[in-house]
């Protein structure tokens, strides 16, 4: 450690705890309490990064979240590699390994810096003007090179193993920012008994107090400021109704007082416990919000203002007072604001030689100037900077009096330049909340105006800078917020403009500062940077305005100013000042670019939280899932459900397994888990009326104990869902839906029942998860069930499409005689908890009858052999009942049902609509591909118009050939015709056929 740069005492660091770390592979030592930036500065390292475009050497400009230059990657291991972190926010820990970015081969020697030499030819927006010839070169020549040059850090290449947590919370008052105003607000709110949350992005509370010299600190409430800070924090921490969140950035302000907070839990630890999440995202719904987000010091814009060693005066104070680091030995101060003077005096007291203070303001009567002169520091007024020298560190600065021009310029050697252009209140969150900002001429700043949410601003973020005033402002805001939050009459979430209005802030004590570029004598040269990271200069802004970009949003997009990873925290107001000056329009007329979420960048992982792998979406399984899993079933995702697709034996592939399962059902008996089918109980004295109005079918004539295929349309006339409906009793229907359709069918039913037909006495209950459903299908199905149930299974007693209530193995049951396979079939509905036991009972009973478990793929083949449609596969939201060949289902005498009127629209009745037909390939072994297009002629050339497409296509074992269903224009009239299915290899001739391929008379069904 370079002891010469670390003070002997003072600061908020622990000199007794040395920490080893590395930067670009080189070993250094810091101390506990350091950030990476302060530790590097203590080691005399100023060069920490390279800029985005010109690869200029850069050091730290600021000391916090606004830092644009010192971006590094921190590597814990190959998977825990985090790029683009600000060195000013990276807390030092033992063994920290940081790397510089955007340079090759090294930070000190970067070939990319050739861009800096080309700068005259690559101004803002240059890429819009070139790289257009030859046409195809963009893709293979120019763009890859531009991409390689762009980007900052490298993305990690391995899956992030860390965990991210998420948390919802409510509170009466959320206070953002734990500086003096925020702490005062929290104390006042807590005193009234409100539930308070206080968050701050830094590792410790205190805000601006942390940058003060503790020996010279002001008194707060009669105590030295450090003591007040300690005691106030402790008191809040011991209050059970107060939640304190350090290392927590409020990154977004959403409607209705919802704020997003990002809490960093482990990045500052050398060896975090494996169970500790890396970050936690809070979503806090606050009844009232107090923003005490402070202000950000503004840099000055002058030629050569970007060299390492040139930094904000306040940052230098922080390095000294908080971290005990001397950021240089010989400094020149350039300022437009009083705040640079205490920084200069404190640094001088710590041993830094202050060569001079160049004040760009005209006045020469300020008390600060007098104090500086009394301390032996020359003060130059009406000053400007003509340029600076040095490559990897500033080594000189050229100061001039504004009137003097270059003639009177004096070059001063230095290794540190401090600048202060005033302070920009942090109105980011207020603006995100859609509060109106007002330009304050006296402060030269945008301040919170009319709020759009229940929010107050306090302290520096609304222009109240003086410590006493900020404390009082915070206390008043905290007390008022607590009062409002706990007011009994409070209802609703509407914003209240009056709630947050407060007295206008007092005029700035230290002056308004300066927004824009420092005036330059005519002919001055050298690039003055406005946006450090993106290398946007005053020249770029001038070019943009010259080219006719007048809106600040256009200028931002054309020059990229304010679009870097710091989101313009240090640059936006200067850019605005420059554009205002160029266009001759006042700043408020130029406008302000939008403040967007997030305030500072937030990890994707923090948004994703625990949603990964199995937890990405809920997994729904049926009661019999484990049985299928144990039998080696292959599952498919259907909505949230896992459904057994087939049950391979040994190394069997899907096609073999499905073929075997199909034949088993056709020849003996299959058992199938149909529990995922949606089930809705429709009950009430008007149940039949309700069903009549909703479904296309006629329900009045359906006898108790009988079932009917139900077809549901949307009111636009297209098929929405289908399923078997049983009339269990006079006023009770057991409605089944498709697996994926259950929630939306119930929602649709509720919609009509509650809002259109609220006079009907009907109750709807989802019973999908209450019933386990075991389908037993095949010629031997009756034999399998016979010994288990207390119901007469004879065809006469329980014919096809009927339902009976009874018991199976003693378990209550609704037994459906229905079939989606074309075979004799039963669907056994039992309470879900009994599902596995009943399944096992059926399985055992089936052993004598060659029972075979089958999955959804087999079910699909079996139903396709029978021409039964699957809604969503053979229909697609553009299919009418008639298209699907289901016109027979429509109750012809009903005056209305959902969708009926739409079916009369001209386009819905055209004979040329696509209709469901069977398609049989000439070669019976060729299986068509799903979705393949059906053409009228062979050899059609693109672009050609298809007649339709294949909706379902399988090899049918029982038929020994391929079968397919398709939607074909005017298809039913084409039965017998030969059409052609287009595939890349040519055309496959197919014959249009009836969609029922197997047992068209339905004898097996009625067995």
């Amino acid at each position, binding site marked *: 450690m370079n002891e010469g740069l670390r003070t002997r005492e003072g600061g908020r660091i622990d000199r007794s705890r040395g920490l080893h770390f590395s930067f670009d592979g080189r070993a250094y030592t810091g101390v506990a309490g350091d950030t990476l930036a302060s530790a590097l500065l203590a080691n005399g390292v100023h060069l920490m990064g390279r800029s985005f475009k010109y690869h200029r050497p850069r050091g730290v400009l600021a000391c916090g979240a606004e830092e644009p230059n010192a971006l590094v990657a921190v590597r814990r291991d190959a998977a*825990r590699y985090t790029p*683009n972190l600000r060195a000013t926010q990276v807390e030092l820990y033992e063994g920290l390994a940081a790397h510089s970015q955007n340079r090759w081969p090294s930070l000190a020697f970067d070939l990319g810096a050739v861009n800096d030499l080309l700068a005259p*030819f*690559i101004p803002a927006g*240059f*890429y819009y*003007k*070139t790289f*257009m010839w030859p*046409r195809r070169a*963009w*893709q293979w020549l120019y763009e890859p090179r*531009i*991409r*390689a040059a*762009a*980007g*900052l*850090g*490298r*993305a*990690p*290449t391995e899956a*992030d193993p860390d965990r991210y947590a998420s948390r919802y919370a409510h509170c009466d008052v959320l206070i953002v920012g734990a500086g003096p105003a925020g702490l005062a607000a929290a104390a006042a709110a807590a005193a009234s008994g409100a539930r308070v949350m206080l968050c701050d992005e830094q590792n410790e509370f205190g805000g601006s107090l942390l940058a003060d010299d503790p020996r010279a600190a002001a008194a707060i409430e009669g105590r030295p400021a450090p003591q007040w800070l300690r005691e106030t924090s402790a008191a809040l921490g011991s209050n059970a109704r107060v939640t304190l969140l350090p290392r927590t950035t409020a990154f977004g302000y*959403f*409607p209705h007082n*919802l704020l997003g907070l990002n809490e960093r839990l482990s990045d500052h630890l050398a060896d975090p416990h494996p169970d500790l999440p890396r970050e936690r995202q809070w979503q806090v719904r606050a009844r009232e919000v107090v923003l005490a987000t402070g202000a950000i010091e503004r840099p000055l814009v002058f030629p050569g203002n970007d060299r390492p060693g040139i930094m904000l005066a306040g940052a230098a104070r922080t390095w000294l007072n908080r971290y005990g680091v001397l950021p240089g030995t010989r400094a020149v101060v350039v300022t437009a604001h009083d705040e640079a003077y205490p920084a200069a005096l404190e640094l001088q007291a710590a041993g830094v030689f202050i060569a001079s203070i160049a004040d760009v303001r005209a006045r020469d009567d300020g008390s600060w100037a007098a104090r500086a002169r009394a301390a032996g520091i020359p003060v130059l007024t009406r000053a400007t900077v003509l340029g600076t020298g040095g490559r990897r560190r500033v080594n000189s600065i050229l100061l001039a009096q504004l009137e003097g021009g270059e003639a009177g310029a004096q070059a001063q050697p230095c290794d540190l330049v401090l600048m202060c252009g005033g302070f920009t209140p942090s109105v980011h969150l207020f603006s995100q909340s859609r509060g109106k900002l007002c330009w304050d001429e006296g402060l030269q700043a945008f301040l919170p105006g009319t709020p759009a949410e229940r929010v107050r601003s306090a302290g520096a973020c609304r222009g109240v800078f003086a410590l006493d005033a900020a404390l009082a402002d915070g206390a008043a805001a905290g007390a008022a917020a607590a009062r409002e939050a706990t007011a009994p009459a409070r209802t609703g979430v509407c914003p209240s403009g009056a709630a947050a209005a407060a007295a206008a802030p007092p005029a700035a004590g230290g002056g308004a500062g300066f927004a824009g570029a420092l005036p330059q004598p005519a002919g001055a040269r050298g690039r003055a940077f406005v946006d450090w990271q993106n290398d946007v200069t005053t*020249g770029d802004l001038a070019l943009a305005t010259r*080219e*006719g970009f*007048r*809106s600040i949003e*256009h200028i931002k997009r*054309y020059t990229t100013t304010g679009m870097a990873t710091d989101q313009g925290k240090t640059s936006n107001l200067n850019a605005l000042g420059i554009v205002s000056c160029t266009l001759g329009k006042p700043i408020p007329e130029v406008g302000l670019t939008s403040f*967007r979420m*997030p305030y500072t*960048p937030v990890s*994707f*992982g923090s*948004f*994703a939280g625990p*949603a990964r*792998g*199995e*937890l*990405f979406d809920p997994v729904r399984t049926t009661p019999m899932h484990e049985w299928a899993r144990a039998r080696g079933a292959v599952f*498919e995702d259907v909505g949230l459900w896992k459904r057994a697709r087939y049950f391979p034996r040994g190394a069997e592939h899907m096609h073999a397994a499905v073929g075997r399962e199909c034949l088993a059902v056709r020849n003996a008996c299959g058992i199938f888990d149909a529990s995922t089918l949606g089930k809705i109980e429709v009950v009430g004295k008007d149940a039949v009326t309700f069903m009549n109005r909703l479904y296309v079918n006629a329900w009045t004539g359906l006898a108790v104990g009988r079932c009917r295929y139900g077809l549901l349309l949307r009111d*636009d*006339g297209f098929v929405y869902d289908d399923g078997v409906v049983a009339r269990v009793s006079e006023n009770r229907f057991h409605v089944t839906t498709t697996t994926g359709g259950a929630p939306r069918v119930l929602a649709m039913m509720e919609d009509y029942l509650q809002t259109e037909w609220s006079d009907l006495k009907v109750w709807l209950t989802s019973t999908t998860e209450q019933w386990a459903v075991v389908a037993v299908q095949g010629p031997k199905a009756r034999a399998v069930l016979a010994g288990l149930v207390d119901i007469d299974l004879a065809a006469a007693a329980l014919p096809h499409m009927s339902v009976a209530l009874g018991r199976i193995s003693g378990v209550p049951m609704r037994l459906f005689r229905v079939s989606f396979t074309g075979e004799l079939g039963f669907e056994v509905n039992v309470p879900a908890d009994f599902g596995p036991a009943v399944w096992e009972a059926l399985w055992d009973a089936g052993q004598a009858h060659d029972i075979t478990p089958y999955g959804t793929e087999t079910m699909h083949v079996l139903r396709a052999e029978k021409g039964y449609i699957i809604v969503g596969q053979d229909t*697609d939201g*553009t299919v009418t009942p008639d298209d699907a060949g289901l016109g027979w289902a429509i109750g012809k005498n009903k005056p209305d049902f959902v969708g009926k009127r*739409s079916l009369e629209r001209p*386009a*819905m009745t055209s004979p040329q609509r696509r209709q469901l037909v069977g398609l049989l390939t000439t070669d019976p072994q060729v299986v068509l591909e*799903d*979705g393949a297009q059906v053409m009228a002629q062979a050899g059609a050339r693109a*672009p*050609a118009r298809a007649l339709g*497409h294949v909706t379902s296509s399988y090899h049918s074992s029982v038929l020994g050939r391929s079968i397919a269903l398709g939607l074909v224009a005017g298809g039913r009239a084409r039965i017998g015709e030969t059409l052609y299915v*287009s595939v890349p290899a040519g055309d496959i001739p197919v014959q249009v056929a009836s969609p029922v391929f197997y047992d068209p008379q339905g004898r097996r069904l009625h067995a």
Partner: protein
Amino acid sequence: MQPFSGLALLRRGLSGQRGWTTQWRSPPPKAAYDALIVGGGGHGLGAAYYLASEHHLTNIAVLEKGWIGGGNTGRNTTIIRSNYLFDESAALYDHAVRLWERLSQVLNYNVMFSQRGVMMLAHTVHDAQVFKRHVHANRVNGVDNEWLTPEQAKAFCPLLNTGNIRYPVLGAALQRRGGTARHDAVAWGYARAADALGVDIIENCEVTGIRRNASGAVEGVETTRGTIRAPRIGVAAAGHTSVIMKMAGIELPLESYPLQALVSEPVKPVFPCVVMSNTIHAYISQSDKGELVIGAGTDAYTSYTQRGGLHITSHALEAICELFPMFRRLRMLRNWGGIVDVTPDRSPIIARTPVPGLYVNCGWGTGGFKATPGSAHVFAWTIARDEPHPLNAPFTLERFRDGQLIDEAAAAAVAH
């Protein structure tokens, strides 16, 4: 128009790039024009450009209430593709892709159209069936689209997680001619080229009323900058179309929803293509600057606020982190919202209206950017000839009355 070229940059670089003049003028509105376009986004500016360049209507103006390209043109994720299902859609979007392929040269403005390939992931058997139907339909239509196995998908985008994933990747549809472009440049390029042909581009000019004559035909608009007369008015106002058309007494089958997008901090090239997953709602590419550009879904409710809910953003990032778990440590830099105007069948309306002289181009939902040149081109035709171009003839207003929908969403279960 000052020609743009590398040589011009070099030459002007010798004199501090001082020689450049305005890319488009900022004229005060004239009292009357031959035609007006309401809406200075890509579709409106492009329509003005094609009106001037192909239909020789140069005494026209584009009226923009804010700054050009400030709506959805500057707020989208810049994905361009044409592998739509229905003949009508595929033809329209593919017309756009063909125009995209030469747009930089035609406009002399580098719109950075990069045909990096758009890969749409299938996560379920149903997805696979739907995508294969697309692939077949597209081939017959002459639109490139191919089916990839999971291994081929992984080879095309090596970062893709095909391991521990809730919804495994069962395959993908890839359109190699698809890709991305630089959104701002599209607005600016059209503006500059149209301006050079004499078109007035009038910013900060909000239309507050539509004037109609005794016969009901349009005769001009009221604006915040005064009355402007014109016998033909084309409205291309995206999310605000309903508001504008109501001024002429026309109610549309439109609803405006918030749609969000976001970018990461820039990183070195890592992501070679565009990947979309409709099933788990993820859309991602990497911009030339290095930012990962990520699209989220729409919010559930209509809104004109240009912002959406945090849970929508979170869901998009859950999906991205599931597909690309190495991106969990990357950070969101910027999030924003647009207002998308959605029709019942998710297809646009580019048509004449019941009001003579009034034309509308709207309903692009989440898919408007990719169509920009094609949409603008046929819209200009429709305005100039008072009849639709064959490509937009099916995209009428009357199709909702007649049930002649072009329902990409229902048919495809694919977001645009």
